């Protein structure tokens, strides 16, 4: 059977990937703009297309708690959320990663309150970047679909065993229909294999305790193990991607370089803004301007070496942050990227743009203005200001 191309929104692409994965348990609570994922999945379950145990819970705190219990019991488990839902899961996010439970969770990025806003920015998952979860950011529904399948394999790897958030932009990606090339069900099932929880709570022959009191004497050692698991993720993800490559004929690395190798100036961005930026790069390239894009796909583990390698030859780089960290010193992505580049003897000039908060649209002209600014920065030998607000009045 040939690969089917389906017209899917980002949410539907996530639900479709989940249907093919067919987790044993799905515990979730609806929240805009994620609701369609769980809504579609509930339909699959109601139609008898999946055998998943659906747990409709009363909050996201309970959703993540139910996931923790289910994975510890030995079930392959998924959920999905956005914004306030992720915020309400907060304390259990840390417990899931600390207990090394490979939960895969699509997150549809949405601004955090207040004031209440249902549209895209990355403040929700940026806040959770230190929670010990692997984080993947997707440009479009195609990437959402493939990344979710890939995430199962990454999360469940014996040397990793960490939960994964697969992020997409609220409404822009989650509700935009695109053609998504899908794999056959059996190919997906074969790739992910069967989930075997080595430390199952339900295995009465090997009784064990999850989550005991862990004080000054061993807590630190367990955190060290978690840090090692993330380092293992860094080492093993390329190999897992290589196994996925023949199925999709696509290479999903930690980063994606777009016309960057001979570029003079470049933009680093995440998710759907990369699509917009690619169009601008093509337009400016036609005018002979040497511009490029670095798309960051994985924020955790943080691909520092890859970023250094990709940006080292540029004269100036603008990092686009779709969230504000209120440090008065730039957004979260900017600070991590800038810190990575400290290793270089000859560093590119850098500037930061906070943009798109609360779903504020970012168009071609704005991205173009960033490239124009970058050329000015090169000319003047430095940026006017370290942090800029793109598209604010």
């Amino acid at each position, binding site marked *: 059977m040939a690969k089917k191309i389906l017209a899917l929104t980002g949410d539907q692409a996530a639900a479709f990937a989940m249907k093919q994965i067919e987790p044993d348990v799905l515990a979730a609570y609806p929240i805009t703009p994620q609701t369609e994922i769980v809504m579609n999945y509930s339909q699959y379950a109601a139609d008898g297309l999946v055998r998943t145990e659906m747990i409709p819970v009363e909050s996201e705190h309970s959703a993540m708690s139910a996931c923790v219990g289910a994975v510890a019991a030995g079930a392959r488990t998924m959920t999905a959320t956005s914004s306030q839902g992720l915020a309400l899961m907060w304390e259990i996010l840390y417990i899931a990663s600390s207990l*090394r439970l490979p939960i895969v969770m699509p997150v549809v990025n949405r601004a955090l309150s207040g004031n209440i806003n249902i549209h895209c920015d990355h403040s929700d998952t940026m806040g959770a970047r230190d929670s010990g979860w692997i984080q993947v950011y997707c440009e479009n529904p195609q990437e959402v679909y493939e990344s979710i399948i890939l995430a199962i394999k990454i999360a469940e790897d014996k040397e990793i065993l960490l939960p994964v958030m697969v992020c997409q932009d609220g409404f822009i990606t989650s509700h935009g229909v695109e053609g998504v090339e899908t794999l056959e069900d059996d190919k997906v099932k074969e790739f992910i294999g069967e989930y075997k929880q080595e430390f199952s709570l339900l295995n009465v022959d090997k009784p064990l305790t999850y989550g005991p009191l862990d004080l000054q004497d061993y807590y630190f050692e367990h955190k060290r*193990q978690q840090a090692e*698991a993330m380092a293992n993720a860094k080492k093993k993800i390329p190999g897992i991607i290589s196994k996925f490559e023949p199925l999709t004929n696509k290479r999903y690395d930690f980063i994606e370089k777009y016309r960057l190798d001979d570029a003079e100036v470049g933009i680093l961005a995440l998710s759907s803004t990369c699509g917009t930026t690619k169009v601008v790069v093509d337009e400016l390239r036609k005018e002979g301007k040497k511009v490029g894009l670095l798309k960051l796909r994985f924020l955790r583990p943080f691909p520092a070496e890859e970023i250094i390698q990709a940006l080292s030859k540029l004269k100036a780089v603008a990092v686009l942050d779709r969230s504000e960290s209120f440090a008065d010193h730039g957004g979260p992505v900017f600070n991590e990227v800038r810190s990575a580049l400290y290793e270089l003897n000859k560093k590119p000039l850098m500037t930061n743009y906070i943009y798109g908060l609360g779903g504020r649209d970012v168009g071609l002209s704005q991205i173009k203005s960033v490239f124009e600014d970058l050329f000015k920065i090169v000319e003047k030998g430095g940026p006017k200001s370290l942090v800029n607000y793109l598209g604010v009045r």
Partner: protein
Amino acid sequence: MKKKGWKEIPIAGLITEAGSAAKYKTGDWRTFKPVRDEDKCIHCLICWIYCPDSSILVKDEKMVGFDYEHCKGCGICASVCPKKCIKMEKG
């Protein structure tokens, strides 16, 4: 005992052995310890029912003493004893 390093212990703080809590000596958390006046004790075992740390030792249905390696000195036994024959003393 030399404590193990992060490479030598199970991941995630898992305890892979059942009933291992007995190995964790909690007696030194205590400020006051229960001491019983044997002559007054009627062996009703109410202290045994109430002790939250399973630290009342019983033999042949008789109260025979305290497990001081695990007794945390909460004083519940002294409080519930109908004969008031348990005193909490320093140590």
